[in-house]
């Protein structure tokens, strides 16, 4: 009886569900298109030459070049010319408003042919001509290997410091209850909203006094003293691990350090991986700190600063700038596609459970 009642209206419901599926998925795909369009722009523009970029008559967004015919040593643009025997591909020797002179590429010895009409109404002939050499040029002009090396040094050592110190401090907050702990935790969380500018000038002066400016040290060393996001995420993870194993280990005489290394850490691989990824990407993206601390030593610039400088210097060559942007995003985007599951879980941990 109940099933009979349910199946009857579900015929209509089923059809409406199908419609909703098409509508929602269609709208979703529309947004996908909008989200991918900038990347498509970067890719095709990065493959164009300067002339290709500025050729407004080009029929599509792909890098096309005008097809030419070599006539007595000069390349002539080919046009589609309407003739008595249908459209013919002809090389234009001399454009004119009322009559133009063409060469038949099939039969150049026949000499110039005069055609009556405005050449501007003729469609030029294009062929696909992507400039793969842009990659080599942008790679060299950016000095990408050096930028990559600097970025990796900063990001990897910084990640090591952030993860090790994050684990230690998070363990202290998660497993040891003492007077003042909760207050300290609020102070820690408060530092999340603290703008870096509030501490910037004195730390900059301090670093320049001890000759740390124009070295990697200001970008690396502070990470070894734990950061609120990482501690927050790791503490949350540690707290949901069962205490029984800790207590069993303690009864067996294990010290807190041994418990952290042998009991807590082996169970926390996902959280530690997430923190590694977060910090690595944070350091990879960071622009402000390297701009401040490495401004006058371009040999130490990371990708972010190098790319911005390249952009500022090559304002007249937007195609190469797009090639440069493409070169710099390949690695982070690839890592993201490989590790997205861990990554998104980590965001949920830090962003929701507050």
């Amino acid at each position, binding site marked *: 009886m109940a099933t009979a009642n349910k199946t009857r209206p579900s015929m209509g419901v089923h059809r409406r569900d199908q419609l909703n599926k098409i509508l929602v998925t269609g709208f*979703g795909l529309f947004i996908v298109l909008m*989200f991918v369009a900038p990347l498509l722009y970067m890719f095709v523009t990065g493959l164009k030459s300067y002339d290709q970029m500025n050729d407004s008559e080009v029929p599509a967004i792909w890098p096309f070049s005008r097809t030419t015919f070599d006539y007595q040593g000069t390349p002539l643009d080919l046009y589609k010319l309407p003739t008595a025997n249908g459209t013919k591909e002809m090389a234009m020797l001399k454009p004119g408003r009322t009559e133009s002179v063409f060469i038949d590429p099939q039969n150049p010895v026949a000499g110039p042919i005069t055609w009556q009409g405005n050449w501007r109404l003729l469609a030029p002939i294009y062929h696909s001509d992507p400039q793969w050499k842009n990659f080599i040029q942008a790679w060299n002009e950016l000095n990408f290997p050096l930028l990559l090396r600097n970025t990796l040094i900063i990001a990897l050592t910084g990640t090591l410091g952030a993860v090790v110190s994050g684990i*230690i401090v998070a363990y202290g907050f998660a497993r040891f209850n003492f007077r003042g702990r909760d207050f300290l935790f609020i102070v820690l969380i408060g530092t999340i909203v603290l703008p870096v*500018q509030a501490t910037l000038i004195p730390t900059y002066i301090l670093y320049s006094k001890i000759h740390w400016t124009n070295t990697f040290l200001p970008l690396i060393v502070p990470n070894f003293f734990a950061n609120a996001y990482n501690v927050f995420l790791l503490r949350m993870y540690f707290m949901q691990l069962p205490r029984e194993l800790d207590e069993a280990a303690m009864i067996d005489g294990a010290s807190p350090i041994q418990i952290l290394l042998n009991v807590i850490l082996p169970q926390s691989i996902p959280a530690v991986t997430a923190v590694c990824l977060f910090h690595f990407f944070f350091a990879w993206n960071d622009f402000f700190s390297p701009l401040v601390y490495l401004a006058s030593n371009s040999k130490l610039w990371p990708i972010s600063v190098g790319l911005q400088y390249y952009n500022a210097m090559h304002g007249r060559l937007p195609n190469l700038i797009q090639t440069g942007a493409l070169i710099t995003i390949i690695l982070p*985007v690839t890592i993201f596609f490989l590790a997205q599951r861990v990554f998104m879980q980590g965001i949920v941990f830090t*962003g*929701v459970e507050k």
Partner: protein
Amino acid sequence: MKADVQAIGSAQKTTKKRQGHSAQNRFNTKWGLIFLSPWIFGFFVFTLIPIIATLVFSFTNYSPVTPESTVFVGLKNYSDMIADKNVANSFMVTIKYAILALPLSLVFGLLLATIVNSKYLMGKNFFRTIYYMPAMIPVIAAGIIMAGIMNTNTGFINMGLESVGIPGPDWLNSTFWIYPALVLIGLWGLGNLMVTLLAGMQGVAKELYESAEIDGANGYQQYLYITLPLISPVIFYNLTMMIIGAFKYFDLAYVLKNGTGGPAGATNFYNLYLYKNAFQYNLMGFGSAMAWVLFIIVLALTIILFTTSGRWVFYSGGKQ
């Protein structure tokens, strides 16, 4: 097994209450502080002392070029700030951007999260990955790519607008359109907002929707009266971070206009102007005053948002 553990637990509790109480406390305090020490040290050296030092510097005319002639100038930097038209302008720029960016980002983030949470969406993982992906593009590269797509000659946006007969604006060189342009760039990288809102939505108990369905609530009503109130803490958290983020805004303004603050000061964000004063004009005393004002603003905003949150944020476990 479980009973054993509980027995140990309760035994510990009783010992804790009696003679073991202080020993246990001492143990916890000692080890807790040992493990917290890296952060406590870092907090003093990299946060607390520098904040106070910033305040001290803000009363001086310190310049790294002529450090020997540093003197206390009282409140001069602060009165200079009030007199400086560029400071007032940088405030207005920041607020204009925030007023436009906050609601649009929130609505668009909710839209993305709602789509990827919809039971009607086929191939959810594909959509989640693609929607999140721009957030992984380093901000400098993202700025360059989006500046390209907004290019008046070759950019897709104006090409699309022109194909339907609308003349596209000069996004990055107009004192008006630069703000929508910055917001658009921000919308492209809303992955974190989407993921946190999505997690909030998935945390809402299914039973609530089922009983609402029985009561005859349609999908729209369910969204308005169940989903939104229940994810309001997540919305609140993100809103707080976005407001503070507006006062920290720097990277995109710098890369799009090469740090000039143009057109006509329209991207001279507070933070960018602070940076220029401290590191380009070497006015570190003035920069410190700006930094302290920024610190106070952020602190005040945070306090206001958190003290009023009880009125409009719904916490399912009662007030937090």
